[in-house]
């Protein structure tokens, strides 16, 4: 959670500091089209990043025996 805050906070400050300029001369329809296209590119390129693949690990990590905490005998 801390790492998330560390990443997001400066980014949010940076983003918020960008002035939301008054509407420029660029056609609003062009702005919208370009924006929608950027969203679509992101949507499409992220799609294949996580397709299931055979032969990949999917089970929880099993710690090596040497790393496991030895059990103390009763009464010790």
């Amino acid at each position, binding site marked *: 959670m801390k790492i*998330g805050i560390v990443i997001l906070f400066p980014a949010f400050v940076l983003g918020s500091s960008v002035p939301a300029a008054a509407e420029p001369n660029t056609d609003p329809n062009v702005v919208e089209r370009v924006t929608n296209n950027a969203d679509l590119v992101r949507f499409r390129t992220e799609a294949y990043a996580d397709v*299931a693949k*055979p032969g990949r690990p999917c089970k929880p990590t099993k710690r090596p025996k040497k790393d496991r905490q030895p059990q103390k005998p009763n009464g010790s």
Partner: protein
Amino acid sequence: MVSKYFGVAAMAAFAWSAQAPAQNIDSIDSQVDFIRFTAPEGTRAPRRSAIPVDTGLEAVGVGAIVSNQGQEKPKEFTLSIGAPFTYTTNALKTDTGRVDDVHINPTAGLSWEKPLNKVTLSASLQMSYDEYVDLAANDQSVFLGNFSALLGTLGKTPTPYVSYAPSVAYLDFYDHHVVTLHDFTAGARSFFKLREDAKGNPLTSLVVDVAYSRREASLAASEQHRATVTLKFSGVVSPELSWILKPQFQGRFYSAGTNDGRNDYNFKLLAGIEWKLIKSGQPSPYKVAFNIVFERNDSNFAGKDYTAWDIGPSVGYSYKF
């Protein structure tokens, strides 16, 4: 025209040159498994990842290499290049007076992923140019970034994540800056293995992603709150062939400028198959895909509804290092 593709071509050349000394990923994976199998008990390296691969976190544990000490070092970087050639039914995304066209959308990206103890950090940068055959005035380009942290191990239980995703959009080939967007997202993601092989590896899987985003922008009219639900079904038919079905539902609630008070409901659906080329009996980093993308937008503002289909093949290259 040649200069327009210089950036993408340069990245392609880099990928080509960097490929030479690399071993095949699956080949290295086999070595890892073999060494794990033959190493004495107690000296075996841990499994590569506790995180299922169908998570958007594919680099975790994928393409691991083995050092002299038997330790595995995951490859953290992925260079991807793709070029869809698609036919669109509505190039201008308008409700009436639709114009169809064919466009080429070369994209090059570099991504990085670092699994830590309980957090997986990832970052990506991408450049994309979209050139239309007839509607030259619609040519556009964009830089896309994504910096995110997944807070936990992905499984059936929703795992929270946060991300910052900037987009810088231009007309033509990075010629005329149009708008800069800053998306701040908090969400949760779950992974479900729907079908598996004998070894427990996923053959069919589902990722459910629910998120809220705040979009800040250099133009007030682009600022909005977003609520998004994404489902991602994916599966493998064979080592070469995989498929994906990705519907996304998104509410866009504009909050400033001339769009203040506007509410849009956007639906996207991607259905695609991807074929990985086989080289010397092993999957190569080259791939071919065929995608159908459907988009429908409904708005409470007049003239903002539209429907568009985007259909066509794509060639790509992906290299991990």
